[in-house]
């Protein structure tokens, strides 16, 4: 089942630092989905000011469903966004599993930030990060 994970850096740049999908042929199509989901993320964040959503959570939940995919979002305090796109037919994946996947992404991203050889804003090229993402995706597919 197709799955995509993406890490997007903070505004105003807002470009992806990392995108990985299974199967990889879908990657280009997913770029578009990720891009449009950024608008939804921004909407949700600004809606928090109106106290409609739990302000204190980093996890944003289901951003929007399309007919083929479900898109989930998570924004850190440092305004880095994580987006996950999952096939709609994958009904076995539950909310708390998605939350824990985002936590793992956040933890690995923090490790990357603390790596002195990494410049903030660069694309992420890390074997540790890749293997974490790989094992997560294996569990989902």
């Amino acid at each position, binding site marked *: 089942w197709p799955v995509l994970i993406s890490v997007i850096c903070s505004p105003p740049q807002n470009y992806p630092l990392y995108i990985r999908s299974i199967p990889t042929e879908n990657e280009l199509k997913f770029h578009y989905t990720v891009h449009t989901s950024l608008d939804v993320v921004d909407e949700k964040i600004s809606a928090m000011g109106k106290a409609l959503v739990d*302000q204190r959570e980093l996890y944003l939940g289901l951003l929007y469903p399309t007919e083929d995919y479900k898109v989930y979002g998570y924004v850190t*305090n440092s305004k880095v966004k994580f987006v996950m796109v999952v096939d709609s037919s994958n009904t076995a994946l539950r909310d708390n599993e998605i939350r824990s996947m985002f936590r793992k992404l956040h933890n690995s991203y*923090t490790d990357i930030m603390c790596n002195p050889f990494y410049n903030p804003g660069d694309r992420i090229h890390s074997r540790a990060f890749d293997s974490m993402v790989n094992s997560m995706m294996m569990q989902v597919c």
Partner: protein
Amino acid sequence: PPDEALFLLLHNEMVAGLYRAAEQGEGENGRCTTKLESMGFRVGQGLIERFTKDTARFTPPLDIMKFICKDFWTPPLKKQIDNLRTNHQGIYPPQDNKFRLLTQISAGKQYLEHAPKYLAFTCGPPPGGLLNLGIKSIVTPPLSSMPACK
């Protein structure tokens, strides 16, 4: 605790080493301060990511300033900021009365001229951390008497 002493010693060497290199023709004093500050800046970016990993979402700017004074200042410098005021126009002078990186230098006027070198690195992390939280900032460190600083 050993890691505290390690950081103090490393910091002192960083300052001394940079200035030695400068004397050997690498540039004037101003560049050393910038280098120290930008090292601190990058460290601040990493630190803020790690420290905010498990906290709830902040409401700027008050939550953020409180966080900087308590949780961001304490781990490296072992105590919270003593005093934080604001003029409500975007200036927040935090005051630390016993700034750890200066306590090794004897109190009194004689070293006041050199003390700013030891503040340069520490001026880095707050803007670095704040930038990653979405706030642009500058830090200026006025020193009036050792070992306090603002």
